[in-house]
């Protein structure tokens, strides 16, 4: 009988424990740590019939440039094992049309709105930001210095320390809203870029963008994607992306947002435990639009079960001394 009483008390306490999933990144307050990644969620509205957008922590909209962009010729995508290649070429409506046509809807949501910004030269980034600064309802910028699919485009910035410093510093100076910087994984040591971005004024980091890859049709002997090389995303990249998030979270003091192949709450929790203050859902939005909502629910369940607040989960990775010495730096 005593046991039964104990069990009842445990149950009651368990029921009472309602974990707090709130997280703050560079002054932007999120109801939960789950955002949708740029380029995988359009301008939000496209998913309004499928999921309750107000449940999301944040939406990072498709990359916006100062002027509208046409993008790359078809074929632009190709499915690979547990992943996909894309070379869209940053097709977008441009900053002005974004403010007029897309932002008013996003403003009606409780969900935080992050605008991904890119350009071909530092001036382009600054020009896009100056236009977007007029947008009420934007919570932060995510500077895309890492798109692998544009000629003379973002990747040059994302794989060059001096250019990274230059574009982050100039953008920070122009930006009216907090500046997140999205890093490229296509570098030898991502922590060097994390540190440079931090020093140049980044308020937070998000990582990673896609990995440059390719696929070939052996019958026609032509590339599967017109751009020849394309960005790999999806579950295939998760272990590598997770390693990079872990390294960067230890290398800088500013918050890190983790992404790469997240399909469920377990994936997201790995990133959070590795030190990410929030996560982004990318490719999974294409084939399972309810992924972000399932991830939020799963994180809540995990916190309930472990009786941990989200803040206690973040960065809670325990590394034994000997394995830390062996880990790749």
């Amino acid at each position: 009988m005593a046991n039964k009483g104990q069990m009842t008390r445990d149950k009651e306490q368990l029921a009472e424990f309602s974990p707090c999933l709130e997280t703050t990144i560079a002054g932007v307050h999120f109801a939960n740590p789950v955002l949708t990644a740029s380029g995988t969620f359009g301008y939000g509205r496209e998913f309004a019939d499928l999921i309750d957008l107000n449940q999301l922590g944040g939406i990072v909209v498709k990359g916006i440039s100062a002027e509208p962009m046409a993008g790359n010729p078809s074929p632009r995508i190709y499915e690979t094992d547990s992943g996909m290649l894309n070379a869209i070429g940053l097709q977008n409506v441009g900053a002005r049309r974004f403010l007029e046509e897309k932002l008013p809807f996003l403003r009606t949501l409780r969900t935080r709105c992050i605008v991904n910004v890119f350009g071909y030269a530092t001036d382009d980034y600054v020009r896009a930001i100056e236009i977007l600064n007029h947008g009420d309802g934007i919570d932060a910028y995510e500077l895309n210095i890492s798109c692998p699919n544009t000629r003379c485009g973002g990747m040059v910035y994302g794989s060059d320390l001096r250019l990274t410093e230059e574009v982050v510093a100039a953008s920070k100076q122009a930006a009216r809203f907090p500046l997140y910087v999205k890093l490229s994984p296509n570098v030898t040591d991502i922590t060097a870029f994390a540190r440079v971005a931090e020093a140049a004024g980044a308020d937070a980091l998000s990582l990673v963008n896609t990995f440059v890859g390719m696929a070939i049709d052996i019958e026609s002997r032509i590339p599967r994607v017109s751009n020849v090389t394309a960005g790999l995303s999806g579950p295939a990249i998760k272990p590598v992306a997770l390693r990079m998030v872990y390294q960067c979270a230890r290398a800088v003091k500013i918050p890190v947002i983790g992404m790469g192949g997240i399909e469920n709450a377990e994936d997201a929790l790995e990133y959070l435990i590795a030190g990410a203050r929030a996560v982004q859902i990318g490719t999974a939005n294409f084939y399972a639009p309810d992924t972000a909502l399932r991830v939020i629910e799963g994180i809540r369940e995990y916190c309930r079960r472990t009786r941990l607040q989200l803040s206690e989960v973040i960065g809670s990775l325990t590394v034994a001394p000997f394995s830390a010495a062996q880990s790749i730096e």
Partner: protein
Amino acid sequence: MYDETVAVVENRPLTGGHFVLSLDSARQAQATRPGQFAMVRLLGRSDVLLRRPMSIYNVASAVAPPLRAATDAATLVQDAAMNPRTTKQDAALKAAATKPAIVQLLYKVVGRGTRLMAELKPGDYVGLLAPLGHGFFQDEYLDRAKAADEILHVAGGIGIAALLLPARQLAAGGFHQRLFFGGRTQDDLVGVDEFAASVSEVVLATEDGSHGHGGYVTRPLEEYLSRNSGKNFLMMVCGPWAMLEASVKLARRYGHACLVSMENRMGCGLGVCLGCCIHVNGTGHGTYERVCTEGPVFWAEKVVWGDKS
């Protein structure tokens, strides 16, 4: 558009590696307009992520096993036997018996995704996002159809899947129609019987000459167009790129309106991945349009032909 997990009712093999997949989804079947498409997701595969885009070939009220609509109908029949029938019941009975409850997809095994689809059995589940895209019956299309002496359907291979529903709807509206259908071999000429009831003539062609005209279907099409140069046609075309391009050239040469149902690899079907964009006549951002959202049906003049991009 609904995102649902639906049961396989039947996965019927046809010739040449073609199958008709019947899925139990009344809501999606009833929302379908001719020319729209669906995205099929294989469940339980961590290596195959993306949904596959497929034309909605047909919607049906029932295939053999008991289905929702059929069950409703049976209940109504029972009720009716026990109670005096009312007009309302009669109407409901009729509606339940005729309302479509099944979405049918015609596909050919060409790669990993379709190979896995071919293994689906009744009772298995798939993810179905449907109906998607603009079909063949925008108001502007209908006006052109009404102005035409005859509607010419031109199908290449699996492209036939996009044309059956439009042909049926047009037949119900009393339109004159004709089908030109080409394939590599006679095994590719699937679904001809289903189509035949809606058109006055079916013209078949095979590249290997195993059935109908030998060579490309555009040859008998051109003969027909040149024989009937005084007539006004609306062409509806779906098939591989080269065949689309050849048909569009003929439409232009003979001065007929032409609609094309485009295919492309798709990541999402929702208009966000921009993976399915095709090159169209426009400026700047408008140089590319999404097959999934602005299409899949376009006026032939809208599409930039020639460079396959």
